[in-house]
């Protein structure tokens, strides 16, 4: 099995450490990983702004980069969800179809495909999980509070394997942070207020770190934490899972 590593544009530019952790983590659990160098962006910022019709070339490029892999894995639930829902091809619809069902967010790949039960990781800190909405309700990485059915959580399942890590309980476990792509600038006031309130929930429940499967949410929360000179740090889940003993 060869995995194609899909690193979304803003992760590539701003959070290389999360991309590196993803790569190392996958290798640590025995996966052969390749990063196709010609990738740009999945097209989500355009599509969510109403410009899905401009994303065909992004789609074609995605196919070009990733069609040779058994699985495609990315440290970003949001971009994975976009590919899953909207990747289409005029020339090779069957391949687009195959890719849509073989693209995985890192955590779901580790739990569902690799069925990892041991990580040999250590992170002795109090951690709050920020549920990314696209991960939660889009990829169904955990049970959402809206539904009346049994609880489960793939991120928690993995974080429980990390030595010394203590999860904090939030008042609102799965509320949106307010990033929302271009929403974060188009609706700046609402976005920031939502982010501030999410940060407060983590702060008052004693988190030292906020983690998530989505760096976009973390970038937004980190921006608020940083501006307010908070001691709390935002860290991608790959970095925690890849931390050493």
């Amino acid at each position, binding site marked *: 099995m060869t995995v194609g590593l899909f690193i979304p544009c803003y992760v590539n530019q701003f959070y290389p450490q999360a991309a590196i952790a993803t790569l190392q983590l996958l290798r640590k659990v025995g996966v052969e990983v390749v990063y196709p160098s010609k990738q740009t962006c999945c097209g989500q910022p355009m599509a969510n702004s109403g410009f899905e019709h401009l994303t065909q070339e992004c789609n074609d490029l995605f196919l070009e980069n990733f069609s040779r892999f058994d699985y495609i894995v990315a440290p970003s639930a949001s971009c994975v969800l976009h590919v899953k829902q909207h990747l289409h091809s005029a020339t090779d619809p069957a391949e687009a179809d195959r890719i849509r069902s073989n693209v995985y967010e890192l955590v779901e790949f580790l739990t569902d495909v690799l069925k990892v039960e041991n990580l040999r990781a250590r992170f002795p800190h109090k951690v709050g999980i920020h549920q990314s909405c696209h991960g939660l309700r889009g990829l169904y990485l955990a049970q959402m509070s809206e539904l009346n059915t049994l609880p489960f959580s793939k991120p928690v399942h993995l974080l429980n394997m990390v030595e010394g890590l203590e999860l904090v309980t939030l008042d609102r476990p799965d509320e949106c942070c307010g990033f*929302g792509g271009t929403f974060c600038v188009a609706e700046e006031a609402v976005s920031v207020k939502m982010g501030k309130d999410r940060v407060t929930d983590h702060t008052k429940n004693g988190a030292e770190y906020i983690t998530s499967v989505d760096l976009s949410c973390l970038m937004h929360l980190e921006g608020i934490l940083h501006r307010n000179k908070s001691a709390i740090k935002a860290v991608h889940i790959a970095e925690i899972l890849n931390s050493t003993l």
Partner: protein
Amino acid sequence: MEKGMKDHAALAEAFINDEERVDWHDGALWWIRQKRDIASKQIPEWEDLRETASRIKNNVLSNLHDYLLQFEANATLNGIKVHWAADAEEHNAIVYSILKDKDIKQMVKSKSMLTEECHLNEYLIERGVDVINSDLGEYIQQLDNEPPSHIVLPCIHKRKEEIGEIFHEHLGTEKGVSDPTTLTRFARRHLRDVFITRRAALTGVNFAVAETGEYVVCTNEGNADMGAHLSEVQIASMGIEKIIPQKAHLGVFLRLLARSATGQPITIYSSHFKKPREGQEMHLILVDLGRSRQLGRVDFRDSLKCIKCGACMNTCPVYRKSGGLSYHNTIAGPIGAILAPNLDMKKHADLPFASTLCGSCSNVCPVKINIHDQLYQWRQVIVREGYAANTKVLGMKAMAWTLSSPTSYSTLGKAGRWVLNNIPFAVNNKFNPWYKQRDMPDGPKESFDVWYAKNNGHDSEKD
């Protein structure tokens, strides 16, 4: 958007300026969302109920024509006078003509978002007919000359002190009194007089049963009943989507409605109206007002399943932080944002963008409307129809061009320049809305692709 009109973002910003109010508004609605969670989780078959309700509504929407005619026939047999209105103007004219016939100059009205959509009160007042809203929240909004900000909790954005002020000014309560029980008692005394003296009463309709020709009105205050029972002319205004096929289906919807709306097992008063009493006249107006157009929009037809429980508003973090009036539409929140562009796409072009697409609304909705998917779809339609701002169009075109070519992307991408220049939220200066209240990430020394080329060059392009 029309010139000079404030969009959702601007109206929301104004609401957010008063942070204490936002926290309170947010907290009050979240409390109701939690009550809804507890109530729904006490019913093991909750998810089945939602699925059943959704399917019943599918059937209704696919056979709307037949059910409406069946309802009309049965209601007429029961002695109800059935009217049809294509739009707000027709609806209002019908109400007015019924009142004029009887020379009635005063009417009492219970909760009906449809008549708000039609701006019925203004219409009647212009023609010398006085209307009083008898739902307490709507009554407060009416006194304050504001539309409802929530479909179930019309004045949820007002604090009790403000309501005390309004009562002092309009009803003569003592200044500074803000105790809810005292104020409610005062309003009740006042409304009792209204109920006793008004000859005409108008109600909304929650469900109309095709097989029996009856309709059901749900309220927690009993105000619809007070009006209807004491009046000599009773009028019901109903959107054509409110029809359900059989009385047996009511159980499904009544169980879902109250739990979703407020966390109650059932609404306090679920009153069935079937035929006029002796000496009473009963009218029912079936109103289209854009519904059949929405039915014809394949991607959006499911929005007509809505039973107006308000759960999507209570759960929506954007709604909770921005207040219902920021949606500048009768129906606010997520459902309003997918109903409004159908009525006027230009005026409401901003509303489908007033969401993070978090998806909580779709999963809380008792009839399983895919609200957030429809918000996404509306964005595509609005852009295609040319209602997106020009600057946005150019920006997106530039973005598409850059992203389509790895060479232009990587040339521009060195040291994050591409992102800084092209991702609109990433420009680090004081004119940028990102930077106003948030810091940018500390720029890394090198991007991942540069690191990878250095450290893994051997296997990056091995085939």
